[in-house]
């Protein structure tokens, strides 16, 4: 199976959101002049979970982006055939020229990561920085990660690295192509 992936190391993610802003800048998702809080598209989001009661507490942080599902519901939902899983990389991509803006993919996405451009009426989302990775670069979020919590590569190889470091995959977070690991 060919599948590129990002591995999110919960031992290192500090929930700083640097990746979100760097991603927006790179993909031109923000009108720096006029955008207001709450109105900007984003291909990633940070989630966290605090557990326990004072003073015995634990907290994890992680990022959620398109999981590049094995059998993407968005592909099935799209009435115009605009979404496809790239055979070479396993990346799920939306073809903007084919997207009619039905919004069906957004409804069906279990991870709620697909964005909608209301003005131009098209759906868009993380494509693992397809245009960068084709030329040997890493996705922007991986490159800028403040805590080096993200790594990019072939899913199987990332799994091998996780195992070597004694980290376990947290299947509860995702069983798709993005890996969440923790010691």
């Amino acid at each position, binding site marked *: 199976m060919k599948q590129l992936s990002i591995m999110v190391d919960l*031992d*290192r993610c*500090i*929930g*700083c*959101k*640097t990746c*979100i*802003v*760097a991603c*927006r*800048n*790179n993909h*031109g998702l*923000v009108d*720096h*002049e*006029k*955008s*207001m*809080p*709450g109105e*900007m598209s*984003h291909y990633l*989001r940070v989630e966290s979970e*605090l557990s*326990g*009661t*004072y*003073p015995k*507490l*634990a*907290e*994890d*942080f992680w990022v959620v982006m398109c999981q590049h599902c094995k059998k993407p519901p968005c592909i099935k939902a799209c009435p115009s055939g605009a979404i496809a899983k790239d055979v070479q990389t396993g990346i799920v991509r939306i073809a903007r020229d084919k997207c009619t803006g039905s919004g069906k993919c957004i409804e069906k996405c279990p991870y709620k990561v697909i964005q909608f451009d209301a003005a131009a009426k098209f759906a868009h989302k993380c494509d693992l920085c397809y245009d960068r990775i084709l030329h040997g670069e890493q996705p922007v979020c991986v*490159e*800028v990660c*403040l*805590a*080096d919590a993200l790594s990019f590569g072939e899913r199987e190889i990332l799994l091998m690295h996780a195992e070597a470091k004694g980290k376990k995959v947290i299947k509860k977070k995702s069983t798709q192509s993005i890996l969440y690991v923790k010691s």
Partner: protein
Amino acid sequence: MHESKWIPTVCYQCKAECAILARVEDGVVKEVRGNPRARGKMCVKGMAGITTLYSQERLKKPLLRVGERGEGKFREIGWDEAMDIMEKKLRELIKRGEGHKFTYSMFPHSTTDPKWRFVNAVGGFISTGLPHCDSAKIMAHLHTFGCFPNHHIAPMYFTVPKGGVMILAGRHPFGCLDDACVPHDILNAKERGAKLVVIDPIFRVEASKADWWIPIKPGGDAALFLGMCHHILKKGLHDKAFCDKWVREGDMDKLAAFLKDKTPEAMSKICEVPAADIVKLAEMCAAAPSVSVDAFKSIMYGNGMDWGHAWSILLVITGNLDNPGGQPLPEIAPMAPVKPAPPAPDLKELGYHRSGPNRAKFDHYTFFLEPTWYAAQAIKDGTLKVFFASECNPALSEMGSGEWRKAVTMKDKKGDYVLELFVVTEILPSETMKWADLVLPDQTNFERWELLYMPWWYNFGHTAAVCQPVVKPIGEARHANRVMIDLGKRMFPEYFAFKDDVEYYDIELSGVGMSMQKILEGGALWSPGTVGFRKYEDTGKFNTPSGKIELEWRMFKDIGQNWPSPELPLEFRRDADKFPFILVNYRTIFLNNTGAWSQNNAQLRDPVSGLDENPVILNPVDGKKLGLADGDTVTVESATGKVRVPVRFTERIKPGCAGIIHGFGQTMGKVAARGDWVGDNELIADAGSHLDEQDLRGGEAHVSTRVRISK
């Protein structure tokens, strides 16, 4: 022709000033990154800097106040008129022999920042734009081991060995105010076997990554460390060889005598850390190959100097000075002076805290800048007449916001403002601007030249860095440095004979065999890459009057403060019945505190990529006791102020504490003004108005506040 290139420059979304690269495409900044030559990291604030640069709310022309101070009404004027207003008033002040009543609140980007030169030429003083942060830490280290006085000398986490202990006491290094590579370096140190200990009344992201979280009573840090020192000395676990060689003769015996009754049990009663944990941490530190300590909020309380003193003592007795993983003793790059330089006036003789009715109270005040927290009082006393502010937001950052507003709007019998001229340079609308007479549009780091060589830069990733303009300025914005150089050329041509800022920096760089051109060709950085360890062994001395480490602060013996008090700040020791909660005003990575350029940045106030809320946080146990429901709007009241704000319950805060993020409350700018959030300084008392209760040794540490909460 289409052009896209990465240009090295420096970030200025906060005071860390990380070296960065900016990708400029056809004259527009599109992306930014950490500069790989300087450890290559950039935080969320830095990434959002492009939004600051291009925001439609940028100030583009000089503005002159047309209404009363506080109304925020202005008319646009030309730069010539603005320069004339400043020149006329300052000449008048100098003619009256009151040059020392001019103060510039700023954040100097180097020890020879051109704005500072201008202030010296007038005969005035600076107060930093970081008014109360950690001067107690600076002064404590300076008094004890002569550490070069500067701000954020964070431990160098990339040097921490396996088994080293990293203590964060009320410190948020993942907030990146030292350098964006700090989080990564702390996590890497942990991976190689260092231990992270977080001492904090709030369980925050650092605590979530820590090996050990120690919730402490706010202000209890001095007691905790004195209890540790007691145990270390009692058990003979201290670094004897180091202490024998470097501590001033007699000081170890005096320390032992002083610590005699500071037992872990006794100290536990003050700091609420179990005595067994004090012993455990002491033994951990004594056995570790290195110990680093960093603090921030905790060093801002009324007992900041005591805490800094206790912390300095622990570093000394465990031999953790200038060693890998310990407390660095940085040096400053030897830049060439630009001659002739105006002499600085003597802060011990003049300055607003020295020339007013309270001057006698400052006999032991040894910090080298004006105490910012005294500015409101100085205006009332008539000893601060002209005030300039750059890159700071005193209307929100000064403790006692109400008193500050009262002072800047005070009028004399003729109906004129007592503070005769108030000038603010700003990039985006700020709360302070609302009260200014003259607002000058400043430039972002993407539009200006600046030479940076402050020694606080974490890990010396860049010993000198050049911030260069990568795009054309927006509107008529001018960098405050250039404005002050131009004003200097008008008023003091002998001190401003150089052509411009770039030539000024060029002269300075000749001191290290560099020039602006050479640095720019070398990636905008000059960094020999060595920090050196145990440099005191090379020189055979520490930078103290005796050349040895001075555990006892003899200069404060006459006021009985030669050894650190373990007590909580005065404000926490009284009125617990009336005001049961201790206010913990904490920080976040998403905002540069009160900085208008981050509070008005849409990406940093976005709920997805930043932070758009600031409720008061309470432990659910306390919420229940008060009969509150999560989300209720409550009244938070201190002895000096009152606010209404939503409450949120969370297990992450120690019972008895109420948490609020420092920096909110701005009403200027449509992004910053969002929501019903409030500034913490509405609740904190103006330290200048109750001097008898302040520790006036030099720590500007006076934020200790108790509050009560009701529906």
